[in-house]
């Protein structure tokens, strides 16, 4: 009888292994799996928008919308953050999906922070809107994009849901100013008396998006089937229903 597998000396990990060691070992490969080209293109578009505003001597209102456009551009790039062509190959592993998701977010955050600082510095101080409030808006857009991607991964089967998430985010960004009632307005100019109230709403939105993202990191248990599941990616699956 051939000996049972799964007990090769020196191969099996220590059960008391700290998660930090796994996360540290994952930094380099996860860094390489990030969609840097997409993020780079989004960041470049943002810089171009703000740079063009500076070049033509845009006023405060145009600059504000330029900065919001730049934030949206990066958020559209972040929508691709959880795209993973190897998703199905690496799905049933002991390291939780949440670890990889958080690691991806953690690796991108400092880069995004530097980019945002560069974007703000590109704007002349005379026309620059309140930087803290604008940072809140951009941060919320980025977290919303990440939450959308996390929801798509949690409830969907596609290895690369970035396009759908980005399309949904773009649609929301276009429709929100048109459809939101006045007392829920988010996109107000700095001289508007509702600026402070609008940014309280941004903060609540940020909290909600962060909570949604955190909830989506939780993996489904053995009987945790959602209502809108799709068939597996196998050739043989029955018709997809969503």
């Amino acid at each position, binding site marked *: *009888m*051939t*000996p*049972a*597998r*799964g*007990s*090769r000396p*020196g*191969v*099996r*990990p220590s059960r008391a*292994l700290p998660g930090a*060691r*796994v996360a*540290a*070992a*994952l930094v380099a*490969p996860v860094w*390489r*799996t990030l969609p840097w080209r997409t993020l780079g293109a989004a960041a470049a578009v943002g810089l171009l928008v703000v740079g063009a505003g500076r070049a033509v001597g845009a006023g405060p209102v145009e600059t504000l919308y330029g900065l919001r456009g730049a934030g949206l551009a990066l958020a559209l790039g972040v929508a691709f953050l959880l795209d*993973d*062509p*190897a*998703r*199905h*190959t*690496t*799905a*049933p*592993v*002991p*390291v939780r999906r949440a670890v*990889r998701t958080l690691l991806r977010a953690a690796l991108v955050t400092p880069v995004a922070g530097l980019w945002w600082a560069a974007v703000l510095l590109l704007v002349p101080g005379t026309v620059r809107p309140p930087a803290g409030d604008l940072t809140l808006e951009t941060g919320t857009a980025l977290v919303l994009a990440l939450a959308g991607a996390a929801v798509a991964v949690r409830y969907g089967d596609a*290895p690369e849901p970035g396009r759908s998430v980005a399309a949904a985010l773009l649609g929301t960004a276009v429709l929100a100013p048109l459809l939101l009632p006045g007392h829920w307005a988010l996109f107000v100019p700095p001289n508007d008396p509702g600026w402070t109230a609008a940014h309280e709403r941004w903060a609540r939105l940020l909290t909600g998006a962060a909570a949604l993202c955190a909830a989506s990191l939780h*993996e*489904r*248990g*053995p*009987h*945790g*089937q959602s209502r809108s*599941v*799709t*068939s*597996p*990616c*196998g*050739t*043989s*699956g*029955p*018709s*997809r*229903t969503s």
Partner: protein
Amino acid sequence: MTTVSAAVTVSASGLTLRYGATRALDDVSLRLGRGVTGLLGPNGAGKTTLLRVLATSVPAASGAFTVLGHDPASAHGRQEVRRALGYLPQTPGFHPDFTPFEFVDYVAILKELTDRAARHREVRRVLDEVGLAEVRGKRIKKLSGGMRQRVALAAALVGDPGFLVLDEPTVGLDPEQRMRFRELIAQAGEGRTVLLSTHQTEDVAMLCHRVLVMAGGRVRFDGTPAELAARAAGRVWRSTARDPGAKAGWRTGTGGYRNVGDPPEGADLLEPTLEDGYLLTLDGDRGDRGDRGDRGDHGDRAEATA
């Protein structure tokens, strides 16, 4: 054929899962031991769903299962099942800029092998095992389809899992690659529990000590390949023209016709193959007669055969 053990290593009962109105799994129960078990079935039979449920990749709506004594009902149990698992999905995806070594190393970290030296030894071992030692530094995007399948198999094998789930690993491979893959699967089945989903009855005949046939989300047959072939005993015959009474019939290379179904009197009977038994099982007209593992209402949902 691989070493077979009677000890149950994977056991499932009442697994059920719906996709909208479709029952992908309908009260599926099974018990697996060591060695390679084949899983046959037509498109939409529920094979991939069953594999993904057992791999803890997709949760079942109801039912329970254990893998090597671990119950994935709890988060801790699920982690333990995943520690014991190697999974090769039907369409394995890769990070194309990774080399086979880097990709399998990445999967090894995801399997909690954090000691760098030991992990690299293990990665080299599995790449050697699947015959990729020569190209371990080449980018995956530059490898052939067969080599990519072997990268996926190496990723499944890394960490020496006790339960290996392989979803149609030989699909799209040329005959030589398929033979090579069969050797690898047979080797992998030694001392392990391997569940192999396939459309290739030859794979099952050559590799498996046991075969399950699924259709309509249910297990329609559970037995040995010889028992499955025996279902067609006396029901395969040769004729000079296609027999209109046959369930399936095709012209062979020698010009005659091979028919499967209910033969006419005095028919020139042929030795049945595993495929004949499989076709008749799906057709369902022989249903429940004396074969262990049938789960009732045989045939009313079985898919068209030939």
